[in-house]
């Protein structure tokens, strides 16, 4: 299976390096013009030559993504909790959530820009909208899918609905929350960038849009590289956090 005894992380680095080298070689050997596909070395040089521009843009986009993710997370968890405590509301609220979710983002984003301007508020809202749904769906099933043996135990204690929620449903939903975060964290970056694309005064989306309209592909790809790296870092951070919090998950349940 693994003759070189490499760790998972080493293999990942190896694959990415091979991919970038192949890309570099293809661009050089086939002499692909830079306005179609710049070589990785050219993209990295663009990044190094404009550190302030990219740092500023990345910071803004990341801030929007984090703020939006936080709001989406809180809203998703709160609505899931509400629907668990008041199950009668589930169908109505879920229909509304699905309607909201099925509306294309590219249709809502310009509207929010028209209503709320070019500042960061519409970006945060769009990111929140995008990240909220996976959290709601996952956490809701985590709160509902409790083990029947546990429910019988709490029944024998004549525990109140609130006690069952606090001591059984909430901790039971934590692994589901992290599963949602793994989806929502990278989505947050997409949300922020797409929102910036539809009109913004700064951020990576703005940089990409400017580069795109000028056919400046090294600039465009530099932003993509940053986004890919940030998405990966966010994902890894979530996985690390999950291991700290859900220490009982990798073991079979008693």
């Amino acid at each position, binding site marked *: 299976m693994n003759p070189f005894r490499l760790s998972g992380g080493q293999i990942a680095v190896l694959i990415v390096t091979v991919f970038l080298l192949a890309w570099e070689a293809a661009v050089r050997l086939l002499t692909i013009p830079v306005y179609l596909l710049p070589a990785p070395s050219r993209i990295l040089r663009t990044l190094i030559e404009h550190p302030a521009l990219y740092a500023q843009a990345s910071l803004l986009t990341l801030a929007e993504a984090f703020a939006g993710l936080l709001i989406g997370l809180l809203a998703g968890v709160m609505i899931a909790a509400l629907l668990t405590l008041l199950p009668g509301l589930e169908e109505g609220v879920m229909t509304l959530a699905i309607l909201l979710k099925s509306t294309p983002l590219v249709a809502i984003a310009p509207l929010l820009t028209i209503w709320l301007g070019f500042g960061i508020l519409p970006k945060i809202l769009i990111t929140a909208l995008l990240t909220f749904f996976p959290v709601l769906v996952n956490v809701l099933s985590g709160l509902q899918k409790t*083990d029947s*043996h*546990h429910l*019988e*135990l*709490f*029944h*024998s*204690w*004549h*525990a109140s609905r609130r*006690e069952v929620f606090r*001591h*059984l449903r909430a*901790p039971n939903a*934590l692994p589901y929350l992290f599963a949602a975060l793994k989806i929502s964290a990278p989505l947050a970056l997409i949300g922020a960038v797409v929102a910036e694309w539809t009109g913004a005064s700064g951020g990576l989306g703005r940089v990409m849009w400017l580069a795109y309209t000028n056919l400046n592909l090294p600039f465009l790809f530099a932003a993509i590289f940053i986004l890919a790296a940030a998405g990966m870092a966010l994902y890894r951070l979530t996985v690390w956090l999950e291991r700290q919090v859900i*220490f*009982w998950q990798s*073991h*079979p*349940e*008693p």
Partner: protein
Amino acid sequence: MKVEITALSHIFFTPQPLPALQNLNLYIPSGQFVAIIGPSGCGKSTLLRLIASLLQPTSGSIRLDGKTPAEANAARQVAWLAQSPALLPWLTVEGNIALARKLLATQLNHQMSVRQALARVGLEQFAGAYPFTLSGGMQQRLALARLLIQNAGLWLMDEPFAALDEITREQLASMLLDLWQPAQPTVLWVTHNIYEALRLAERVIVLSSAPGQIVADFRIDLPHPRREDRADFQDLLGEVRTALNQAVEATV
């Protein structure tokens, strides 16, 4: 807690009507240790679930010290232990007992501390461990400590040791008897193991296949500790086995 069951029937609608219990009458005086055995699917678990108010009977009545199962449950007087120890994996050994004590604290006057309960089942050195680090037998011992701290008048046990290996099962059965001795709550213990039933119980009730009815009711007056090699033990074993075989054949 005394248990009075009158003309109890239960039908599951799945959606075809599936009778599980039919016209069951049973009186259990307070403090009796009763084993219930029967072929699989005879409604043993259904009977326990009805008493635990996890199910509502189709007809008939159950009275626990004169109360309905729901009232006895509200008074937290009915403790429950099934095959799964149902431990909370995110809480430590101590935390699992402490949660039971906390949630039950409003109703019961607790004489027993968490540490004392753990000591009774020999888990005091594992107070800080998490359930997933314990063996199956230790997990079920922890569940027994949790049952003990509830201080209930009735213990309902649905094949609590069925998933364990034989040696561990025997150890836990002896432990169960030791835990029962001081306060002597009423015990209704469903098992499919005749040996186990005869080693522990004061009374063994044999149910027929579904719809479950009582086909035999044995008093076991042998002194403790009971020895399997004694003639009277072997005689009873033969009688119970015959009754169980008849219960199985009656429905085939």
